[in-house]
C-alpha cells in the first residue's frame, strides 16, 4: 500500500502502472500530501469533476435527466472503492506519486461553495492546477496565496464554469479584454519587456513578462491559457474512439504518449490487457516519437546559438524518421496509431528491416554530430551554465521529465513503473545534476541513443503475426481509470471517468508542462534576455497541453 492513513481506504485499480484510488474527506488532504511529500513523493495532477447529477451509486437511473443540451453525466464511481454517495456533488481528484506507484484521491466537496484546503505549500506545482480548476469548475482552494485566474481570460465571465454540467455557453459569453494583474517589480532602473502572445517565431502563443535591469532578468512571469480550446468539454460529447483521436491532439508533438495513456486508462476501466504484439508496437511508436522530437530539439538548440549547421543536419535526420513513419504507419507523427484495446497499425518484415537500417544510420550520424557539438567552443560557451536549475530547487518545485532528469530528479515511468512491455526492456535512465542547458542537451543525446537501443530490442521481440487487434468501443458504467506514459517531455497522464451509461463523463489529460512551466521562471533568473529563447527551447514545454 503506497500511503497509510486511518481515514483512507485504498483500492488497487487494474492498471498497467501500479495505481490505487480512494475517497478521503477534504480535511485530511493536507496530512496525506505532507506525508507523500516528506517521503519524497510528488504531485502528478489535480482536477475536478461535477457529479451533481449522480442519482445513486448502485441503481442506474434510466429516466432522462433534465440538464438541457448537456448529456446526463454522473461521474466517478472508482471501481471497487466506496464512492462518496452522500451529498455527492463536486469531486476534487488529486493524483500523487511515490516510489510505490500512483495514488488517486477522490475528495467529495459540498455543492454550495465547494472548497478544499490549499495544497500548494506542499506541492508548489499545484498552484496553477488549483487556479485552473477554479476557472473551469468553481472549486475553491481555501487560503491559497494566489487567487488570480489562470485559464480564463476574457471569453466567459468569472461566475460561470465551463466544466459544470449546467454550463450555458451562450449566457456566459463576454467579450472583454484580459485584465490580468501581473506582479510588478519596482526599483531604480527596472523596466518591463512584454512578449507575446504572438511570438517572433514558429511557436505556440503565450505571454512572457520580463522585469529587467539592462540585459539581466530579475523576474519572469508567464501568462498562459491563450490556446485554451475547451478540450476537456469536447471529450464529454465524444465516444470512446472519437476521444482517442482527440487525446492524440492534446499536444501534437506527444500524440503517441497521449493516445497510449488514454488507451491505458480505458483498458484499466474495461479490465482488459491488449495483446503482446500491440504493446510492443506501442513502445516502438513511443520511442520513435521520442527520437523525432529529440532530433528536432537538438537541431534548434544548435540554431539558437547560431550554429545553423546543427539545425540543417538534425532536421535532415528528423525528416528521414518522419518519412519512414509515413511509409510504415501512414502518418508522419504517428497520430491515430494507438486505439483503446490495441493499435491501428501493423509492421511487416520489410518494415522491421527499414527501421533497423534507419537505427544504424542514426547511431552513426548522431554520434558524429554529438562530437561536433561537444567540441564546438562557441556552442558549449552558450550551453554551459545557462538556465540552471539546481537539484534542490528542482525537487522542491517538482520538476519532472527530461528537464527533471537533467537536474538529478531520477524519475522515468519506463524505469520505476515499467508497464508492459517496458518491464522486459531494462531501460537505462539518463540523469545529470548540472541542471543547465548543457545538461538538458546531454540528456537528450543519451535518451536518443537509449531509444535506438530499445528499438533494436523491441524489433527482436516483435513477432510477426497477422490479425488486427479489436478496438475497445464502449466502457463499463461508473468506471474510473488512469493511464500514465513517459512521453519524450515527461510523464503524460490521462484520467477517464464514465457515467451510468458508460459514456465519457470526464476526461482529464495532464501534461508534464504543468509542473515545468513554473520552474522556467526560476531557471531564467539572472540570465540575460538574449539567452531566453535558448533556455526556453532547452525545456521545450507545451502550451496546448497545459492550456487545454
Amino acid at each position, binding site marked *: 500500500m503506497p500511503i497509510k492513513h486511518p481515514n483512507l481506504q485504498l483500492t488497487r485499480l487494474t492498471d498497467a502502472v501500479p495505481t490505487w484510488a480512494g475517497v478521503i474527506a477534504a480535511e485530511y488532504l493536507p496530512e496525506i500530501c505532507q506525508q507523500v511529500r516528506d517521503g519524497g513523493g510528488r504531485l502528478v495532477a489535480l482536477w475536478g469533476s461535477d457529479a451533481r447529477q449522480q442519482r445513486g451509486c448502485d441503481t442506474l437511473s434510466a429516466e432522462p435527466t433534465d440538464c438541457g443540451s448537456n448529456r446526463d453525466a454522473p461521474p466517478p464511481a472508482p471501481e471497487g472503492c466506496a464512492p462518496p454517495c452522500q451529498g455527492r456533488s463536486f469531486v476534487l481528484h488529486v493524483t500523487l506519486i511515490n516510489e510505490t506507484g500512483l495514488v488517486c484521491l477522490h475528495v467529495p466537496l459540498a455543492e454550495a461553495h465547494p472548497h478544499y484546503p490549499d495544497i500548494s505549500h506542499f506541492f508548489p506545482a499545484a498552484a496553477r492546477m488549483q487556479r485552473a480548476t477554479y476557472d473551469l469548475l468553481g472549486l475553491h482552494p481555501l487560503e491559497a496565496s494566489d487567487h488570480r485566474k489562470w485559464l480564463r481570460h476574457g*471569453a466567459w465571465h468569472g461566475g460561470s464554469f465551463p466544466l459544470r454540467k449546467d454550463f450555458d455557453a451562450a449566457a456566459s459569453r463576454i467579450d472583454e479584454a484580459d485584465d490580468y494583474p501581473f506582479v510588478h517589480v519596482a526599483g531604480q532602473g527596472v523596466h518591463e519587456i512584454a512578449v507575446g502572445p504572438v511570438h517572433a517565431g514558429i511557436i505556440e*502563443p503565450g505571454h512572457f513578462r520580463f522585469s529587467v535591469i539592462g540585459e539581466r532578468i530579475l523576474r519572469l512571469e508567464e501568462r498562459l491559457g491563450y490556446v485554451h480550446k475547451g478540450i476537456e468539454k469536447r471529450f464529454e460529447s465524444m465516444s470512446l474512439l472519437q476521444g482517442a483521436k482527440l487525446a492524440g491532439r*492534446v499536444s*501534437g508533438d506527444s*500524440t503517441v504518449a497521449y493516445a497510449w495513456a488514454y488507451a491505458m486508462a480505458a483498458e484499466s476501466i474495461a479490465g482488459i490487457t491488449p495483446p503482446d504484439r500491440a504493446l510492443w508496437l506501442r513502445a516502438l511508436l513511443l520511442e520513435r516519437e521520442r527520437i523525432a522530437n529529440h532530433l528536432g530539439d537538438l537541431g534548434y538548440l544548435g540554431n539558437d546559438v547560431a550554429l545553423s549547421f546543427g539545425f540543417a543536419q538534425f532536421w535532415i535526420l528528423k525528416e528521414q524518421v518522419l518519412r519512414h513513419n509515413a511509409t510504415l504507419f501512414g502518418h508522419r507523427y504517428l497520430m491515430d496509431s494507438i486505439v483503446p484495446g490495441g493499435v491501428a497499425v501493423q509492421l511487416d518484415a520489410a518494415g522491421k528491416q527499414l527501421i533497423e537500417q534507419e537505427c544504424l544510420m542514426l547511431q552513426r550520424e548522431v554520434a*558524429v554530430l554529438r562530437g561536433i557539438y561537444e567540441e564546438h567552443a562557441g556552442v558549449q560557451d552558450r550551453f554551459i551554465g545557462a538556465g540552471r536549475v539546481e537539484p534542490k530547487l528542482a525537487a522542491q518545485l517538482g520538476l519532472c521529465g527530461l528537464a527533471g532528469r537533467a537536474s538529478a530528479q531520477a524519475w522515468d515511468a519506463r524505469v520505476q513503473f515499467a508497464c508492459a512491455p517496458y518491464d522486459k526492456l531494462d531501460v537505462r535512465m539518463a540523469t545529470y545534476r548540472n541542471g543547465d542547458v548543457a545538461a538538458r542537451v546531454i540528456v537528450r543525446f543519451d535518451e536518443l541513443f537509449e531509444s535506438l537501443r530499445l528499438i533494436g530490442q523491441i524489433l527482436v521481440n516483435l513477432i510477426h503475426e497477422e490479425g488486427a487487434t479489436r478496438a475497445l468501443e464502449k466502457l463499463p458504467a461508473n468506471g474510473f481509470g488512469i493511464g500514465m506514459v513517459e512521453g519524450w517531455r515527461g510523464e503524460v497522464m490521462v484520467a477517464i471517468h464514465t457515467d451510468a451509461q458508460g459514456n465519457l463523463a470526464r476526461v482529464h489529460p495532464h501534461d508534464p508542462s504543468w509542473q515545468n512551466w513554473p520552474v522556467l521562471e526560476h531557471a531564467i533568473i539572472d540570465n540575460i534576455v538574449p539567452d531566453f529563447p535558448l533556455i526556453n527551447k532547452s525545456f521545450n514545454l507545451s502550451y496546448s497541453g497545459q492550456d487545454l
Partner: protein
Amino acid sequence: MYQILKQIVKTGIKTETPPQSDESLRLLEQRLQQDILDVFGGALAIRMVDAGSCNGCELEIHAVNNAYYNLEGMGIKFVASPRHADLLLVTGPVSRHMEVALKRTYDAVPEPKLVVAIGECACDGGIFSPAGGGESYATCGKVANVIPVDVAVPGCPPTPVAILQGILTAIRAA
C-alpha cells in the same frame, strides 16, 4: 571546423523540386495583380500565427524550413513581425483567447496582404469544434470566421508539400 565541413560535403544537397500550386485550395479570388505577384514570388515574407493549434501544424511548418523543402531557397522566409510580412500563415481553430491577438496581427500586416489557413482546424474548426466549423465557449472555429482567408490547406497536419502548395497558390495568379 574540419569536421563540420566534412559533414556538410558528405551530406550533399537534399533539396527536392517544389510542388506546383493548386487552385482547388483557393477560397478568395486572387486580388493581386501579376506584377505585384512577380515581386512577391521572388521574395515573400511570412508571419506565422498559432491561433489555437495543438502544435502539430507547427511541426510541419518547421519542417518546411528543413533542407528537403528548403523554403528559404525559394526566397520565402519567416519574419518576426507582422509589419515586415506579406502573408500570414494561421493554424488552429481560433481560440477565443487568441481572437483579438489574431485580428491585431492581421491589421498590422501592410496591404496588400494574403492569408493562408493551415490545417484541418484552421479550415473548418477540426476536432476541437462542434460539427460544421461550429463555435464553442472556447473557440471561434475556423480562421475565416475571424479574418479573411485566401487559401486554405486541409490535413491533420498537412504535409510540408501541401503547405508549400498552399503558399505558392496564394502568390500565383489564378
